[in-house]
């Protein structure tokens, strides 16, 4: 037998401690997931209504020029990568980073600049060859609307000043607690519809003013929604990861206990054998 009884006992003890920690983390993640899912679901109608108004505006937008409508020659592509600030959340960050790598390694003539939200993404990309335009590593899983406005304003400014000609966002969609999908979405550029008017809208005070004000908010709304969804997915992913860690800790404890029991029994058998042998020897 390779391991002594004492060694096995100490291994069981440490596995039990690990299990306790992962179990707690699993429960914390579960309660966070519940909370963030509620916030995410509640924010959905706003986003949907914003998209609805956008479609009404776009119907009538022929002849209106706005920087977001321009189809300019793309020289620099911005890639926003949303990751978590903390680890121990299973494949959540790995999936996003793999997808980002795949995007970055596509052959293209344009330069790519990164905008990183989340510490894990920053830790990974700070040593890579792609330039980082902005980073935000302290949202801590709590997206608040004004902070996100600041982030999107930075993006809009970069776009308007020509630092970026296209902005893509890479984030994780939350399908269910067990299934999350990293997705890449075009962010700022809008396609002007060529279709004719469906309804004759009145615009107050006038279309240009509305479009101008609306689009900057629309972008915030999209970003907010993407962040909420990512955070929800992060919590789900962490919960699942911690559950499987707890399960494998339990498995390990079971296996070690079995080994430990065998070792103990072997020791007892040995002792009895010794006594019996000694007794037999005395008799003889």
């Amino acid at each position, binding site marked *: 037998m390779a391991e002594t009884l004492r060694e096995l006992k100490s291994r069981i003890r440490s596995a039990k401690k690990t299990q306790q920690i992962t179990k707690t983390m699993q429960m914390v993640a579960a309660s966070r997931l519940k909370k963030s899912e509620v*916030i995410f679901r*509640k*924010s959905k*109608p*706003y986003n949907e*209504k*914003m998209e*609805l*108004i956008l479609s*009404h*505006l776009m119907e009538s937008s022929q002849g209106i020029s706005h920087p977001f409508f321009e189809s300019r020659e793309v020289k620099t592509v911005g890639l926003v990568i949303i990751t978590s600030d903390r680890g121990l959340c299973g494949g959540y960050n790995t999936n996003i980073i793999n997808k980002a790598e795949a995007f970055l390694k596509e052959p293209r003539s344009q330069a790519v600049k990164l905008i990183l939200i989340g510490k894990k993404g920053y830790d990974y990309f700070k040593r890579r060859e792609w330039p980082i335009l902005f980073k935000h590593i302290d949202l801590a899983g709590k997206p608040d*609307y004004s902070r996100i406005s600041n982030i999107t304003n930075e993006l809009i400014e970069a776009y308007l000043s020509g630092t970026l000609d296209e902005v893509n966002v890479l984030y994780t969609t939350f399908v269910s607690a067990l299934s999350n999908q990293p997705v890449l979405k075009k962010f700022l550029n809008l396609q002007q519809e060529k279709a004719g008017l469906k*309804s*004759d*809208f*009145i*615009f*107050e*005070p*006038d279309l240009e*003013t*509305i479009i101008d*004000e*609306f689009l900057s*908010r629309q972008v915030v*709304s999209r970003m*907010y929604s993407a962040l909420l969804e990512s955070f929800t997915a992060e919590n789900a992913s962490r919960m699942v990861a911690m559950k499987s860690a707890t399960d494998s800790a339990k498995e390990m404890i079971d296996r070690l206990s079995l080994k430990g029991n065998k070792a103990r029994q072997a020791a007892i058998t040995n002792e009895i054998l010794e006594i019996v042998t000694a007794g037999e020897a005395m008799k003889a």
Partner: protein
Amino acid sequence: MSEQTFHLTVVTPESIFFEGQIRSVTVPGGGGSFGILANHAPIVSTLLPGRLVLTTIEGKKRVLTIGSGFLDALNNEVTLVTETVTSESDIKSS
């Protein structure tokens, strides 16, 4: 008074604040305050921070204070998006 009603939804990034059939609503529009009744022409308007007065189906008046935002009306479906809303105490119509 007309009994015609229309559907109003007031949404903020945090939640749906109000949803239901109402008789009329007055909003602080970007081009001046205006009222909306049923069968209003399609309109999209900016909203300035200010007070919004709506008349519920029972004829009760409710006053909401809203932040800046947008209003969209099409086919008796009025949508109001704003970043903040708070409700003032409900006022009974006389």
